[in-house]
């Protein structure tokens, strides 16, 4: 049975709305734990407010943040999947329908990069990346509304035969430059190697990794842990007004590379917007995480 365009359209819209109105369950656990361990009074209070804000949004169907960002989707399609209509257009239509109907109405955030004109739609919006999964009869859709609070501080730089130390220092430099300005605590995604585009894509996929998913590479696992400790020693704290937890996680991935090695660093803010669903070949929709 082929996957229907209408299903893709509905899932596109639904994932975006869920991303805006509820923080991921795993993220709530991490924030609650950080709040309990916090020694700074203001930050402790901030964590309590964060949880109350997230819980209120989820129970009352409210937006957690008014900056609903621009829509981004990462899609992986099983090679055994068949479609009975357009896929890219279904995603565009799904987002357009959501923007027209969501309650409460969302603000216009899609911005022409040169004229700065704002809208709910624009060239290449939603931003979508596609990949395939060999021999699978389902497609996975990850949705991540992306806003300026973290987006403006992300960076990529090419190194030549970098050491582990070079990479770690660069990650800390990018975090230090962002300082108090993103809505902390953030998740930090790091992509090492490949090519320019591959490094940024790795960083993006890493930042969206669910909490607690094990890092199988022991060297990366050690870097993740040590960098997380390092960032939290900086002291920026919840909402950047001082405290013990500035980052919830550091997630790293790499691709084989040439002697030139791009390193990309990206962030997700404390509400950590990410949702994912699987559409099975028989049309069933399964939430992977939210």
């Amino acid at each position, binding site marked *: 049975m082929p996957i229907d365009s209408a299903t893709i359209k509905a899932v596109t819209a639904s994932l975006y709305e869920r991303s805006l109105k509820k923080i991921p369950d795993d993220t709530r656990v991490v924030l609650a734990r950080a709040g309990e361990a916090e020694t700074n*009074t*203001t930050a402790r*209070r*901030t964590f309590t*407010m*964060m949880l*109350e*804000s*997230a819980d*209120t*949004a989820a129970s*009352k169907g*409210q*937006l*957690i*943040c*008014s*900056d609903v960002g621009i829509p981004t989707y990462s899609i992986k399609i099983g090679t055994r999947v068949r479609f009975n209509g357009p896929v890219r257009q279904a995603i565009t239509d799904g987002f357009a329908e959501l923007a027209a109907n969501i309650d*409460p*109405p*969302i*603000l*216009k955030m899609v911005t022409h990069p040169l004229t*700065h004109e*704002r809208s709910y739609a624009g060239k290449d919006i939603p931003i979508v990346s596609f990949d395939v999964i060999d021999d699978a009869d389902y497609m996975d859709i990850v949705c991540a509304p992306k806003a*300026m*609070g973290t987006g*403006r501080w992300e960076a990529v730089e090419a190194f030549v035969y970098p050491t*582990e*130390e070079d990479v*770690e*220092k660069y990650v*800390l430099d990018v975090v*230090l430059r962002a*300082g*108090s*300005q*993103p*809505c902390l605590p953030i998740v930090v995604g790091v992509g090492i190697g490949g090519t320019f585009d591959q490094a940024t894509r790795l960083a993006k996929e890493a930042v969206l990794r669910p909490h607690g998913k094990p890092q199988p590479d022991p060297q990366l696992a*050690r870097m993740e842990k*040590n*960098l997380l*400790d*390092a960032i939290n*020693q*900086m*002291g*920026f*704290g919840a*909402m*950047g*007004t*001082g405290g013990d937890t500035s980052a919830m996680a550091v997630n790293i991935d790499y691709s084989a590379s040439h002697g030139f090695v791009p390193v990309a660093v990206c962030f997700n*803010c*404390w*509400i950590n917007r990410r949702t994912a669903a699987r559409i099975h070949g028989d049309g069933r929709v399964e939430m992977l995480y939210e």
Partner: protein
Amino acid sequence: MKPMSHFHELTLPLSEAQARELRVGDMVTMTGPVTVSIGIPTHKRMAEAAHAGTALPVDIRGGAFFHLSTYVREQNGISQPLYLNPSTSTRYNAWMPDIVRGLGPRLVGGKGGLDSESVAALRECGCVYLSFLGGGSPLLSRALRGVRSSHWNEYISQFRLLTLDVEALGPATVSIDAHGRSAYDDLGDQARARMPEILARLKQGRQTS
């Protein structure tokens, strides 16, 4: 020793003395009219008015001007603000000193702070910067009581010069006070000062594995 953090329930407008009483780390709620906008064109226009000495369509002297965005629903002739949430303030750095000096607010705010030129203007004029919870829309929106006025309506909703009536808006954290102290500068300095130690610890981590 850390100074005590105080909680203030403020009613707007404020006197200079009231603004100068507020210290970094204090928390506040606000009741009264607050003017909000997150538009860069709005800030340019406000700064130009401040510079030229022309009056804004709404007087923010003694009041509050925040980088908060809202959606106003227009239905049956009634304007209803649906939610309220902060935006990153540093992108308005270029215009905030003129706005603070020329238009005389006692409270500004958003999230993430302002640069040193703004800190100087706040100190000089007796105005403080407040940090609101980003992603705090469900909490901050409880304070909304209505729209007092809306100007420059040719802009999209969040760019307008909008004055809202709020009751107990907050709590927000005083993060730059009217005495030249900025939590952001302090924390940036502290993080940079800690870097040698942090890098040494990372080095140790690489060697012990």
